[in-house]
């Protein structure tokens, strides 16, 4: 084979390598964003027709940010705790952020954590369960200010 062909093949291979890389990058371009919504903007009319669940719900009214946690019932009644940006561990264990002196609470009972502009509560596998309003938690749920959260005999609320 001539020198020229070999040189052409050599450069052709390097080109092929980069063609592969550029194809891969362009294939993944569309899902580089974690939330597609932000990147793609509003779904087109056609997408909405095909998938009705894409139609955006009207924007919820602006909520007041919760700034403190108040114990409204139970042995610690009246205690308040300012909310910062870090998660809060609720339970009887000494390392909990709010140590509940409540015989019906577990050592590590529940966790309150901020995500976006809201606070979420999550049960950490407690014995007696955590209730948000009158609903027992099975997964992490957002807590709105004023909604009572019951842990054993203690009831806490978030206040703005």
């Amino acid at each position: 084979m001539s020198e020229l062909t070999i040189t052409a093949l050599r450069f052709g291979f390097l080109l092929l390598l980069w063609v592969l890389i550029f194809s891969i990058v362009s294939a993944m371009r569309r899902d580089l964003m974690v939330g597609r919504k932000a990147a793609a903007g509003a779904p087109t009319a056609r997408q909405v027709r095909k998938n009705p669940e894409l139609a955006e719900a009207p924007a919820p009214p602006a909520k007041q940010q919760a700034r403190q946690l108040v114990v409204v019932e139970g042995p610690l009644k009246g205690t308040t705790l300012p909310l910062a940006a870090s998660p809060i561990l609720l339970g009887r264990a000494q390392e909990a952020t709010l140590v509940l002196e409540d015989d019906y609470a577990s050592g590590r009972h529940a966790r309150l954590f901020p995500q976006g502009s809201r606070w979420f509560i999550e049960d950490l596998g407690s014995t007696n369960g955590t209730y948000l309003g009158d609903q027992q938690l099975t997964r992490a749920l957002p807590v709105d200010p004023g909604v009572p959260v019951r842990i054993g005999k203690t009831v806490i609320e978030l206040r703005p």
Partner: protein
Amino acid sequence: MSQLSSTPKPRRNVEVALLLLALAVGIGANMLVGVDQEKAFDSDFWFQSSLLAVAALVFHGVLRFRAKYADPVILPLVVALNGIGLAMIHRLDAPGDDTGNNQLRWTLIAMAVAIAVIWFLKDHRILRRFTFISLAASALLLLLPLIPGISAGEILGARVWIRLGPMTFQPGEVAKITLAIFFAGYLSSNRDLILLAGRKIGPLQFPRFKDMGPMITAWLVSIGVLIFQRDLGSSVLFFGLFIVMIYVATSRISWVVIGLALILGGGFVASRVFSHVEQRIDGWLNAFTPEVYENGSRQVIQGLFGMANGGLVGTGLGQGRPDLVPFANSDMIIASLGEELGLIGLFAIVLMYLLLFTRGFRAALGTRDAFGKLLACGLSFAVALQCFVVIGGVTRLIPLTGLTTPFLAAGGSSLLANWIIVGLLLMISHTARGPVDTTPLPPAKGTESVGIDTPTEAVKHP
């Protein structure tokens, strides 16, 4: 977490298109080797190429069937890297050598094992039940090369191989997977405790002393590997893996500070006490000194000369002399590729690793359970760190250590371990990109406490 508003798309057709391109790269590399060495396209070439192609397409078929929503670019990237590695090893084979065919056999075995992992495991969350079994398995795997009888003895100054019939195997490669599973399981269960307790000193919040237990254990394991197996690379890999996973789990920079302090302390003492570490560091700092060159840095320097010879566009596959470097097809395969493909080709390969790493992290971001997040982070970071240690060593950025270049270097255990990692990443990306799976895991046999599998991050907006 922001919500995915679009309907999940499998994108398997994109994968098959990219896969064909990747196979063209791998087979094209092999073909160029043949052209440049003026060998005819013999039946061997067609046989090897078709085996690789069939294996890759079967893998793709399994994904279509079992993990429909898996990331479409991971498989093509890995197949391309593996193909380039195969071509290079084949090219470096002296007449009569069988390393190329051996590597092809291991590639097929590794792909089959990865397929089996995807086929039988179905859901990566099941691995969480094996948290402490994984720890025991890691300990066993790390101890195996030290047990007389099974151990293959000291090869090239390191005691990391075991003998399995006619073959040798490096159990440490598999141990990085089991360790990642253990760290992910342990940290996803104990994250809150480690996160919430502790005292603040200045801007850093330090953990309580008793929560440092696992970290001290990880440090001792790494030091043990360094002392007893004389394997600097794996030691760095295991400890780096742990620091990154605990940092990802807690987002506390104090862990990184403590970890780096432990590495520096351990490294300093090791470089004073152990001659093999000292020799490595000497061969790195004073590589061009004639005395050091004679007994230590020859390999690195020859590799550097080779890469310099390759220049920007390389000498062309099959036209350089990478075979002058000792271990040109395993430790120094990056230098061999740098010589024959040049800077342009080497950058393409480094970029492929980078893309693979980003896809692993993308899967971690997208998946909804804490265990899967940590596992994907840990596994993809392990591959990335391994690349950094090897490529950094070959280019004399850091001391050369005996780690393998993932997917490229000749060596069965490394291929096997890395393909299993790919299988796990594909499975995690399947849950990350697929529709939300709300069905609970089938209950485990034995005493599984209720709620341990509830995904921490599954948040449904009303």
